[in-house]
Every structure is written in C-alpha cells, then in structure tokens.
C-alpha cells in the first residue's frame, strides 16, 4: 500500500539535506559546546552557525535566539518567563494547548488571564485585544498561524497595540515558521516561538526569539547556557538541523515554494469541494498558511474518517488527541462557532515540502468514496435524508 502523508502540521519528515547536516554531530563532532577544547570549539561553531541561520529566518540578531527543545518549551518560557503573579495576560481561545495550558497555570499562580474570542473565520479582532488591556496587563500572547485551520492572525496590528500599551507581545509561530516569511521587526513582537519538527528538522529542537533587552525568567536552573535563558547542554545535532532547515526554508521562499504549496493545497481543496456534497472549508476567505486546509464533511464522524483513510494509506487528522489517543472535539473549531457536529465532522489536511501533485490526486481519489461509505453507514445521515 502506498502511504500518503498529509498531516504535516503534526510533524514533518526530516529533509535529506537536514539529516545529512546533523549526522556528523552524533559521532565525529560529539563535543559539548561549552567545553574549551577542540571538540567543544567544533560544536560551539556549529551551534552559533545554526543560530545565525535561525536569526536570518526570523529577521533578528543571533543573540536574540534561545534554542529550546521545541514549541511547547518556547511557549512556556515566553509566558512563564514574562508574566508573574499579579499580572494580567491577554491570549485567545484558539491557541495551542502549549499556550492555553500555560495560561491556565498562570491563573492558578495568581495571574488574571483574558481569553479573547475569534470570529467565524477564526480571526482575532485586534480591537478586542486593545479593549482587553488593563493597567496590570503585562503580556499579550496571540498565535501567528493556527495549527488546525492555518488561519493567520493580524499579528502586526496586535504588535502595534502591544507597543503602544508598552506590554510584551509573544506569538506562537510554530505553524508559520518555514511556511511563510517571518520578520520579528514587522510583527513587533518581543518573543516568538518556533519548532524544528514542523519545518522538516527533527523532533526535540526549537527556538524562542527574545527581543534584546527583554528580561525573561528561565524555566530551568543550571548552567549559564543560552545567555542564562535556558540551562542545559545544547542539543547540538538538533540545533544544527534546525539551522539547516531554516536555510532551506529561506531558499524555498526565494524559489517561491510557498506559492507552489498554496497552489497544491488549493488543488486538493477544490477537488474535495467539487466531488463531495455538503462539504466546506473552515477558515475560508481569510489569509492562511499555504499548506493547510481544514474541511468539514457534514454527517460524518471525523474520527472514523481518519481511521478509514489511514487504513487506505492516507494520513490526515482531526481535533487533537487526548492522552489515550482518542479524539476530543476541537476547541479551535468550536471557538469559531461551529456546531459540535460540524466540528466533529472536520478533517485537517496539511502538506509538506515532500508532497507532490500525485499525492494530492491519490488523496482526491480516496476521500469521496470514504465520505460516501461513512455517510451511508451513519444512522444520523439516513434519518436526515429521509426527513428532508
């Protein structure tokens, strides 16, 4: 069975060039980047080279990059590191759990948190953010691109609001990095988190941009790594990989790979809408990252759809998995005002650099027949068809 992977917002395959770049740092160049001898100097050079590449990707200085173990750590470091008891924090109700649960924890430790809503397209209204400001507001954390819908928030406007109010602005750019160009100066953020494995580097590495001069409280205590912002021996192979993935992403933007990705995504989306009745796109009509399409197929159970497609070799996803691996209704889609039924009937397709037009065509051959079987065997669908 040929397997097609369209779940790149969950994780991406490591690109061959990235694997090649990181390989020597498992064996030949094994030194601790903090060591003063030759071995340490080799790996220190590699880490700093990677830092330059990531800084170029984000439009910042190398010293403003803190390497982390991934997106969740970056989000937690930004939130717990910039706000503390007594502060007020503004975030949205469609954030990734790394942000939402970090904010819930802040609430337990004496912070006040405002969760601004989104409209039916999944957009935060920057005026809502402005209206939520209080004298105690210390931090605004609004994501750049949503992981489920791909919808891009108006982060530059939110950055201006934060600057005027003199509060910190953090954005979770995990689903944007590598997919669209990012410039922290234009966004006007004080912190921005990215994750390696969402951009074809391996799992276990990420980075947090922290604007120069921003005092951030570390999460861990230990050595003075990462300018005392993140203790712990550097994950050198991972960092090298992230640096290489950043370079490849920038080369991709020069070749307009993002536009090509967008065409491929639109081909998938158009094909679905042309072949399947009572289907639509969540987050349609607003700017999205070029690789994501979240579609609903009314009268189906997304969980069954994901399983049925997986058994046919097509990997997609829905909602977010809870600890047992079962699917919970998406907080993002319900926040957008979707009914529980439609939220449950929604599937996320997300492309990666490795996907081809052929992959999309194979997916398009599988999706309509799968939806048809699900609907045919759904007791709810039958009832509705009879009554209408």
């Amino acid at each position, binding site marked *: 069975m040929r397997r097609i992977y369209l779940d790149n917002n969950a994780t991406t395959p490591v690109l061959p060039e990235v694997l090649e770049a990181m390989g020597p740092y498992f064996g030949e160049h094994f030194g601790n980047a903090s060591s003063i001898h030759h071995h340490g100097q080799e790996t220190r050079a590699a880490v700093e080279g990677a830092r330059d590449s990531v800084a170029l990707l984000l439009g910042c200085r190398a010293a403003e990059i803190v390497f982390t173990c991934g997106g969740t750590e970056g989000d937690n470091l930004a939130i717990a590191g910039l706000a503390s008891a007594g502060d007020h924090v503004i975030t949205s109700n469609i954030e990734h759990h790394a942000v939402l649960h970090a904010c819930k924890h802040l609430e337990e430790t004496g912070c006040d948190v405002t969760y601004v809503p989104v409209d039916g397209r999944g957009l935060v209204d920057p005026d809502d953010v402005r209206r939520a400001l209080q004298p105690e507001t210390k931090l605004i954390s609004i994501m750049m691109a949503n992981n489920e819908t791909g919808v891009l928030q108006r982060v530059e406007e939110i950055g201006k609001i934060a600057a005027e109010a003199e509060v910190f602005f953090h954005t979770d750019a995990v689903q944007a990095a590598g997919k669209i160009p990012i410039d922290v100066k234009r966004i006007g953020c004080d912190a921005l988190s990215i994750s390696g494995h969402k951009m074809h580097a391996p799992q276990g590495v990420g980075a947090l941009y922290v604007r120069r001069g921003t005092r951030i409280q570390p999460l861990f205590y230990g050595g003075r790594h990462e300018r005392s912002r993140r203790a712990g021996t550097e994950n050198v192979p991972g960092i090298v990989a992230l640096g290489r993935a950043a370079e490849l992403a920038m080369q991709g933007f020069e070749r307009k790979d993002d536009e090509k990705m967008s065409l491929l995504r639109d081909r998938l989306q158009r094909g679905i809408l042309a072949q399947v009745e009572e289907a639509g796109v969540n987050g349609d009509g607003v700017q999205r990252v070029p690789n994501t399409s979240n579609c609903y197929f009314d009268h189906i159970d997304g969980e069954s759809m994901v399983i049925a497609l997986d058994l046919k070799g097509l990997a997609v996803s829905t909602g977010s998995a809870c600890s047992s691996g*079962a699917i919970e209704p998406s907080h993002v889609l319900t926040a957008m005002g979707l009914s529980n039924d439609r939220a449950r009937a929604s599937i996320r397709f997300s492309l990666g650099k490795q996907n081809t037009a052929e992959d999309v065509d194979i997916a398009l051959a599988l999706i309509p027949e799968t939806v048809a079987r699900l609907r045919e065997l759904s007791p709810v669908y039958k009832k509705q068809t009879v009554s209408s």
Partner: protein
Amino acid sequence: MPKPQTIAVAMSGGVDSSAVAAMLRAEGHNVIGLTMQLWNQRRLAGHEGMPEAVTGRCCSLDDVYDARRVAEHIGIPYYVVNHEERFERDVVRPFVAEYLSGRTPIPCSLCNNHLKFDQLLIVARQIGADCIATGHYARVEYDNPRQRWLLKRPADRSKDQTYFLFGLTQEQLSRTLFPLGGMTKPEVRELARKQGLALAEKPDSQEICFVPGGDYKRFIDAYLAESGDALPDTAGELVTASGEVIGEHSGIHNFTVGQRKGLGVATGSPLYVIQINGADKQVIVGGDERLYSRTLRARRVNLIAMDDLREPMRVSVKIRHRHEPAPAALEKIGADEILVTFDQPQRAVTPGQAAVFYDDDVVVGGAWIA
C-alpha cells in the same frame, strides 16, 4: 480455514479481547484493533470520597497502553475511538437515574446495547470491517430452520456472559463474532501465553468499569456534585410489609432488593429489603421468607430465537448475573411486556435487573424487570 475477513476487534486491554485479536490474526484475517474511550477516570477524582487517581481499570491509560502493546506485538493497526458523550448519555445517566428511582441497574447491558454492538459496530463498518469480534464468553450461530441468528451459552459456563448480551438484535448478531465461545478461561490464558502476549496473566476485571472501588453510592454523589445537581432527597421511611414504620433511611439509592446490611435497625430476626417504593421513598423490609416471588413482569422485551412470543413457552429464567436459571413459563401480557411464572419461587427479584430466558443453552430473549 474460513475465508479471510476484515474484522474489528473491540480491545479492552484485558486477556480475553487480546487473545481474540491474536487468534483472528493468526487465522489470517485482516484485523483492526479498536478501544473505546468511554469514561475519563480522572473526571471525578478528588471529589468527596473518590480516589485521587485511578489506574488499572477500563479506559484507564494503563489499559489503553496494554491494548496498544498487544496490537503492536501481533502487528495490527490499532485506534482508540472516543465515545465518552454517548456513554455518559446512554449508560452513566440512566445508571444514576435508576438508582435514584429505587431500581438496581446493569450498566454492562446498556453499554453492550448502545455502545459496543451499536456505536462501535457502526464505526467498524464505516472503516471497512465486515464485522466485530469481542472477548465475550458466548456463542453466536445461524440457525437454518428458524432462519435466525442465535445467541448461545459458551462452553465455559462459569464465564457465561450471555446475561449481558440479551439485547442484541439480529442485525447486530449477524455481524458479531465471539471467538472465545468454545474455550475455557484457562485455555484462553494458554493461547495468550503461546501468542507471547505480555498480559497473559493479567487479572480479570470484576467491577463496573466507571465506578472506582465498586462504591456506586459515592460515585452517584460525586457525579451529581460534578454536574452541579444536588443529590435529590431520596431519604424516607423504613416500613414493614404490614405498613408499620420502624425507622428512617438515608436515601433509596443506597438500597437494593435482598440487601440485609446497612438497614440501621435492630430487630430480633434478620431483616431484608423486600421492595423499594420510589414514589413514596419507602424501603419495605421483612423476613427472608418475604423475598421470594413466583412471578415477575418485565418490559422492553428483546427476542432473539424467535420474532414473537405467540403462545406461552417453557424456559429457564435468569434474574441476575450470578443466578442459576430457574424453570418457568413465559407469557406475553402486553405489546412489550412479559409475565414470568416460576415453578419454584425465586429469591430477590430486583427491578432494574434483566430477566433472560434460556431454552437449554439458547438465549430465547430477555427483558427488563419492572
């Protein structure tokens, strides 16, 4: 060798369903493992009287882990499907409501009827399976003369689970396999060992899966508190069969017919709960001899071995899980109501439990005791 089929196995993480998956896989079928996520064990944790954290129970992460490891070991795809909402609606809420109205429910039958052989079977068919298989000890066979699917008692009578399966329809039975129906439990464990399953020695589960420690009273309190509902006042009087009030009780949901302990009154001879009168919140007590009844009425009838009960029939009737089926006559007395007349009076006929009718080892059908 039967023709290979695509079979979804309902895997609980226990020995029985794991053995089923391994056996069907070894027979060359295309097997898909499914575990139903039915109840969040952490949900009521920390409520008054409830344990902080529960492990090693149905739907716990440990069981999902065990099921997943079995699936990996035998090389089948495996998925957890979330049916929490449906389980709460069709099993947990009725369970609580039954107790609060003075009846003694059987959640396992409700789960079989509404979840395993309904919702899960639908999912199984949707994802391309021809049928589902479970680790129940029961047999299902097609009977040509009757042109019906029959549910039969298993080879291992000590593990017989047909009592909980009487609600299955012909459509459900036609798409269900019980591969353990011809085996004994020791044989199943041996099969699990031979298949190299790490959980071959895992103990059997006994309790109601969503009630930690088996204390359903605390569960009801915690569930209602969590839902924001106050526990309805179900306290009332303890009354003898002749109508004499001999004390007070804390709530009808704390009692079940036949119960002796916990009545809170001291009398010369042992007293038992004879009847629970939900409308008046009365618990009627009396001597052991008053627990016996010759007849019972049951509603919401499901017949398996025949499409209708046109004339009275001789059967054996089981009125609770651990009850030896007793000879009786079965008679239809309403559109959806049946009268059972036992040859010998039976002890503690309990409203809310099922009456399941057997003709030798064939399950004729069953109904809910009114």
